[in-house]
């Protein structure tokens, strides 16, 4: 039995059945990390000692017959923009290279409370700005499926770590597709929950009105387990919502016969890799076979999603990243003689190119004389984009599309062309603008590379997209895919 290939659920079950110990699970994953992470570079910081200590504690609990949590013994990777008490949290940036948070994010408290074991902090595009994990100050992460290709981003480290068996589950974060795109590129299940389902307390913000913590798993039920583990209202996040039921596992296997499924023509008619489109259309046929009622729909404002996203996200970024001033925490330039020089030199030396570009675009969009033409305009278009989805969900339960219009690209292929990189997010950003939920799951392979299927659901209807995903996954398994 190869421990690192088990699902998270199997690990927990074998732990309860006393087939393996928590310590063995963690040791097997540490060994895996030692073997592969030199090539993959999924982690910025590892927490071996703490993880082993926690494993001992779980083994003790089991031995003493105490109850254990829903994530007990499962090794989990955490994106490095989620703060962890006394564990370095860098956001993939030089400016936070040595930042040691004095508190835990709400999601970290939840994981610890459910006996999950944090094995390390994963690599990411600097401040989550990127779609390839190439903008990290700590070097690129490689796609475990093909080391010459990117794992996607910005949560590329979290995706690569789960794919390579370095951890069983991981947390990422989403602002415009940063969980779904790497899930697509690494052949994983990645969920972007409804805005407000998961607390953002302790998640270093990029764009507050769009950000949401997301999860990765190697199959649908694992991802659902991770989501159940972190969902729920938090008094410390004023945008988190009181949701009754956050158990996403019990109803997973329910029949999807009669489920109403919309295919937005705008998402299928854009210029994309034909092989990706073909695989997704094959997946649509499977949903028909499963009893789904598939119809073409229209989301008329779809084409404005990306420019709207870039104005709103960068505006919030420029405001958020003003906190990095070299005074309270983080890097401070050595070269200054006035307060203004501390600010300017610290920020110019501490931030990378893409971060500066987005701060600049946001500053421009919010600056006097342009605020109405850019920022306010984008917020109005956002209303129209949201209305498209509101209308669609009156008639349909889920919406299907490709996650990314391309296959995983090669390292270096797009890094010099910001617009080409932004296009990776074409079909994911509108979901964040509307605050609804979506996931990406593997639906086929092209030349050994995975294709992601995006399943979009209405606000707080995570159960719909998960049921659909689970039914599709099981159908694939029964056909030997």
């Amino acid at each position, binding site marked *: 039995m190869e421990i690192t290939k088990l699902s998270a659920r199997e690990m927990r079950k074998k732990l309860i059945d006393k087939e393996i110990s928590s310590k063995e699970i963690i040791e097997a994953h540490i060994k895996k990390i030692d073997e592969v992470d030199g090539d993959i570079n999924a982690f910025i910081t590892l927490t071996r000692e703490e993880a082993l200590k926690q494993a001992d504690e779980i083994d003790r609990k089991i031995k003493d017959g105490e109850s254990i949590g829903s994530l007990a013994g499962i090794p989990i990777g955490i994106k490095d923009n989620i703060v962890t008490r006394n564990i370095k949290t860098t956001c993939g940036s030089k400016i936070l290279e*040595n*930042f*040691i948070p*004095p*508190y835990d994010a709400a999601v970290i408290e939840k994981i610890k409370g459910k006996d999950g074991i944090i094995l390390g902090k994963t690599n990411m595009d600097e401040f989550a700005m990127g779609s390839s994990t190439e903008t990290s100050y700590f070097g690129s992460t490689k796609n475990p499926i093909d080391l010459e290709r990117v794992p996607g981003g910005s949560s590329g480290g979290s995706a690569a770590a789960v794919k390579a068996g370095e951890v069983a589950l991981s947390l990422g974060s989403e602002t415009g597709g940063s969980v779904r795109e790497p899930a697509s590129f690494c052949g994983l299940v990645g969920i972007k929950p409804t*805005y*407000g389902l998961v607390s953002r307390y302790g998640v270093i913000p990029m764009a507050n*009105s769009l950000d949401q913590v997301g999860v990765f798993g190697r199959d649908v039920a694992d991802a659902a387990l991770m989501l159940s583990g972190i969902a729920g209202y938090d008094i410390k996040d*004023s*945008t988190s919502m*009181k949701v009754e039921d956050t158990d996403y596992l019990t109803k997973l296997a329910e029949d999807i016969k009669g489920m109403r499924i919309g295919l937005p023509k705008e998402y299928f008619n854009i210029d994309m890799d034909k092989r990706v489109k073909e695989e997704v259309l094959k997946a649509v046929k499977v949903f028909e076979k499963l009893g789904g009622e598939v119809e073409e729909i229209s989301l008329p404002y779809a*084409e*404005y999603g*990306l*420019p*709207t996203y*870039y*104005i709103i996200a960068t505006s919030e970024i*420029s405001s958020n990243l*003003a906190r990095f*001033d070299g*005074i*309270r*925490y*983080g*890097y*401070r330039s050595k070269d*200054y003689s*006035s*307060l*203004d020089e*501390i*600010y*300017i030199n610290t*920020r*110019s030396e501490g931030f990378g190119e893409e971060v*500066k*570009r987005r*701060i*600049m*675009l946001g*500053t*421009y969009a919010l*600056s006097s004389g342009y605020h109405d*033409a*850019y920022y*306010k*305009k*984008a*917020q*109005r*278009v*956002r*209303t*129209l984009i*949201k209305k498209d989805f509101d209308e669609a969900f009156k008639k349909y339960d889920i919406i299907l599309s490709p996650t990314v219009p391309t296959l995983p690209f090669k390292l270096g292929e797009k890094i010099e062309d*910001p*617009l080409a990189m932004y296009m990776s997010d074409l079909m994911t950003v509108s979901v964040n603008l509307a*605050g609804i939920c979506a996931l990406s799951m593997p639906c086929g392979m092209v030349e050994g590379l995975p294709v992601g299927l995006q399943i979009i659901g209405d*606000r707080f209807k995570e159960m719909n997209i998960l049921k659909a995903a689970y039914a599709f996954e099981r159908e694939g398994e029964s056909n030997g895919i």
Partner: protein
Amino acid sequence: MISKEDVKHIASLAKLKFSEEELEDFTNKFSHVLTYVEKLQEVDTENVEPTYQVNEQIQLLREDEVVEGLSREDVLKNAPDKQYGYFKLPKVLD
């Protein structure tokens, strides 16, 4: 088109600076992105309200109870410069 001077001005607002060489490259890439987002101007948004937040604007209230926050030591732990239990800055006034 955005000029190098415009970019310098925005940089000063954002407390950033660029070398001449960086400025050239930056102005170029920045222009491409700006041209792309210009696309929004073609949308008719007459009588459309902006969506700043997707959640219903409900302010959940709670009891105003005193709870333990972070200690001064914890708060100052990451400061690049500190003195007497405060963040330390260079002299602002002469």
